[in-house]
């Protein structure tokens, strides 16, 4: 395919793409000073912090708990800067009526954006409180000290709680108060236990699934056999006659039921499914040729990095093509929401990653003013990106319209989630490289992918599944490029290695033959898998140990440090060889080029007869800058390693031309307890560096480490994920 667009900015010989569409919010605020993190768009101090006379602090964040521990980490940051005991901090998160608008909780940006805002806002609030205390005590502010909210100076004392009415936080942040130097931290940097865990272990109401409102009804939805199919008919009277049914909702091809009891809604749904007649709908790609078909679709192509240098004569040239399949988020809980429409006002309890974007999109889908909708975050199970959370919120809202002020709780069934969630896109990566004198002298990387971002909040479409089936059908937004360094399908596509010559091209597939959106780490998982697999192929071509080969191409000290740390932890032996069955491999990346540095070494055991691959052990190292909560970081890193091992060894969405075949865990198997590797994690703390997002850092390196370990063990390489027995046997044949 030809390059049609090259929105490029040339500088110092390196070509980078640039973003031409700054968010409107910045345009409006151009005249005001820029503020760091999420303070820029949420400038009032009392939008973040309230000092309560009862001796507590309420902290508001637009980010939400997804099982990643963010609410605990943010509370630590707030308590640290305010100089109060951690236990005094109450957190309110992601509620369109109460909290700052921080967009999506995604991209491993919460510590960077919300954490930065809270650090600065709390430092400033502390300064304001000290000024008030100085006035009250008649002492210079500089001579005051604070311990757990009690301010002391010249033998006199006053507390934050006494100053609560006096200290006016109803003002714009200036971000000029200096946060504490890290050497003085006593709360940040500690493994404080997660605040949400005790309730989850004892049956407390912890999830949106656990909400019960007075008069609550239960809803279920009926989906077509294929995307885009039309509902021709169904036996409405038979569904209505089912026990407990309160409403049967049909709007165009959207179909749902509401019943008194949950099992009644489930039974009514079964009757609706059995009697519904559908027509049309789109065919899916041929699974046997899916990558070729995807690459033949309309694409918008961009060169996102380019460096020119001559290739020496006699360089050894190799090339390879890698693939990853469609992957499901496969949350352990099918998506769930509660909605209530009362007096024209819609309330939605949702585990969406972005309550504000969801509200904006619900408003357009339902024809309501955004001000009449309140979206309140309540935890779901881990989502790992854009799953059915937003879609089920829309579905619940449509059902709530039909039942006159009564709240409707709707949890998707297991097959709803597997068949209708937006998948992480299938991707193809082609790499061509050359080595001479032990160095990479040429590198060309091309990645093809559908969009990884069909989230709610799009300005030109309504990205809510159910809305596409209404009589007044809405349309999804278009595929869009995302600016580097974050990127999307091209996340981590630009190699970090110091190559004199390289060219990276992103082919964004504009069509959407299979519904896709954001899955943890977006394109980074596949791009790093390809880059790091190919690095091993180049190392082999050069006859150099993979760890030494990488280090020879890394200049940055922090990058080198994670590779060296993991090699040390795993006791990597230069030139170590597999034995036909067992072997080890390495993978490395700095997530998004600007976030956490992570390296992984995996050990595999291959059963050559059965074609199975087991990963008994993994070592990993991570540098996430300043560590807010070491145990929380370790939990995220280990979880990421294990989830990526599951993707790499087992996972692919199965389908045929007529529909999705992965409908439950039997046809979408994941890694289970007996096969989970042990994980040894080395954290490199850099208290004086910026805290970096870490939740998605190890996905790519883990995939590469496993693929490289398989190659080291067997001498054969698998370039198409996952490492199924068929592929293993074919590779070994």
């Amino acid at each position, binding site marked *: 395919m030809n390059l049609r667009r090259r929105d490029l900015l040339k500088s110092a010989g390196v070509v980078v793409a640039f973003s031409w569409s700054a968010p409107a919010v910045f345009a409006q605020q151009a005249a005001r000073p820029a503020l760091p993190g999420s303070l820029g768009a949420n400038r009032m101090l009392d939008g973040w912090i309230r000092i309560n006379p009862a001796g507590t602090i309420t902290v508001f964040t637009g980010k939400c708990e997804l099982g990643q521990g963010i609410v605990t980490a943010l509370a630590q940051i707030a308590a640290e800067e305010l100089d109060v005991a951690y236990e005094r901090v109450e957190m309110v998160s992601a509620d369109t009526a109460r909290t700052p608008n921080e967009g999506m909780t995604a991209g491993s940006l919460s510590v960077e954006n919300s954490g930065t805002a809270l650090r600065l806002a709390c430092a400033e609030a502390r300064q304001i409180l000290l000024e008030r205390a100085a006035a009250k005590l008649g002492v210079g502010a500089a001579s005051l000290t604070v311990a757990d909210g009690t301010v002391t100076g010249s033998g006199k004392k006053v507390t934050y709680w006494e100053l609560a009415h006096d200290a006016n936080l109803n003002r714009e942040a200036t971000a000029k108060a200096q946060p504490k130097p890290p050497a003085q931290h006593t709360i940040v940097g500690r493994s404080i236990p997660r605040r949400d865990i005790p309730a989850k272990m004892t049956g407390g109401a912890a*999830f949106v699934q656990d909400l019960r409102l007075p008069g609550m009804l239960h809803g279920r939805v009926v989906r077509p056999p294929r995307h885009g199919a039309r509902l021709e008919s169904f036996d409405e009277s038979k569904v209505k006659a089912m026990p407990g049914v309160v409403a049967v909702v049909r709007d165009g091809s959207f179909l749902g039921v509401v019943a008194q009891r949950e099992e009644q809604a489930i039974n009514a749904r079964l009757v609706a499914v059995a009697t519904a007649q559908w027509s049309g709908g789109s065919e899916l790609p041929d699974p046997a040729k899916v990558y070729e078909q995807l690459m033949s679709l309309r694409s918008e192509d961009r060169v996102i990095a380019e460096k020119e240098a001559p290739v020496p004569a006699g360089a050894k040239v190799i090339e390879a093509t890698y693939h990853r399949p469609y992957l499901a988020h496969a949350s352990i809980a099918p998506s769930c929401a509660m909605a209530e429409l009362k007096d024209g006002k819609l309330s939605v309890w949702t585990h969406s990653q972005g309550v504000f974007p969801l509200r904006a999109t619900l408003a357009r889908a339902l024809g309501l003013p955004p001000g009449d909708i309140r979206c309140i975050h309540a935890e779901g199970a*881990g989502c790992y990106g854009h799953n059915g959370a937003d879609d089920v919120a829309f579905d619940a809202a449509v059902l709530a319209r039909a039942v006159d002020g009564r709240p409707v709780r709707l949890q998707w069934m297991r097959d709803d989630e597997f068949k209708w969630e937006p998948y992480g896109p299938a991707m193809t990566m082609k790499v061509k490289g050359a080595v001479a004198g032990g160095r990479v002298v040429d590198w060309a990387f091309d990645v093809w992918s559908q969009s990884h971002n069909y989230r709610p909040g799009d300005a030109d479409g309504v990205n809510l599944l159910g809305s596409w089936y209404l009589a007044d059908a809405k349309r999804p937004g278009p595929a869009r490029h995302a600016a580097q360094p974050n990127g999307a399908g091209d996340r981590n596509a630009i190699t970090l290695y110091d190559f004199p010559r390289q060219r990276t091209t992103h082919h964004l597939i504009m069509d959407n033959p299979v519904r896709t959106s954001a899955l943890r780490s977006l394109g980074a998982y596949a791009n790093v898998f390809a880059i790091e697999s190919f690095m091993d192929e180049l190392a082999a071509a050069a006859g150099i140990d993979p760890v030494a080969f990488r280090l020879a191409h890394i200049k940055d000290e922090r990058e080198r440090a994670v590779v060296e740390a993991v090699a040390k932890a795993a006791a990597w032996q230069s030139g170590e060889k597999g034995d036909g069955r067992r072997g080890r491999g390495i993978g490395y990346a700095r997530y998004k080029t600007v976030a956490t540095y992570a390296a992984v070494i995996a050990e595999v055991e291959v059963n050559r007869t059965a074609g199975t691959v087991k990963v008994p052990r993994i070592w990993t190292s991570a540098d996430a800058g300043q560590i807010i909560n070491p145990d929380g970081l370790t939990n995220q890193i280990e979880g990421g390693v294990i989830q990526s091992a599951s993707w790499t060894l087992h996972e692919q969405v199965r389908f045929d031309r007529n529909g999705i075949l992965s409908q439950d865990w039997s046809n979408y198997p994941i890694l289970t307890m007996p096969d989970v590797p042990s994980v040894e994690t080395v954290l490199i703390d850099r208290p004086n560096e910026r805290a970096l997002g870490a939740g998605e850092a190890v996905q790519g390196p883990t995939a590469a480490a496993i693929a490289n370990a398989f190659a080291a063990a067997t001498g054969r390489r698998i370039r198409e994920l996952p490492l199924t027995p068929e592929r293993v046997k074919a590779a070994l044949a």
Partner: protein
Amino acid sequence: MAISLKVNGATHSVEAEPDTPLLYVLRNDLELNGAKYGCAMTQCGACTVLVNGAATRSCVTPVGAIEGNEVTTLEGLGTLDKPHPLQKAFIDEQAAQCGYCASGMIMTAADLLNRNPQPQEADVRAALADNLCRCGTHNRIVRAVLRAAKGAS
């Protein structure tokens, strides 16, 4: 029809059809949060409770079939103030990311520890083989079960 159930030591009478899965009666009639809906196909284990001490998938167990039996949910093991050794160990090990699978893991582990109070790591992994965790918290869960077993000895 009215069905009499013994749950967490107390007797309840609920109005439900006998073929109603126990899961929905526990969650909606008795307002117990522990057992979770995950798949309704016995594949994931999120709904696991104890029936007469044995780990049972409540998503496919008709409520009519367990009349007269003793049901224990996560809430019946212990409380925030007086947690069961497994609950305490899961908290101490911070054995959760999202925590949606935790109740099923704990109930299945409780069954294991009843049968085998001093399991080896491989025993724990085998016992939890059919309980799915999506966040990758498996190793912490195993450590928590081993810690609970050790603490109880």
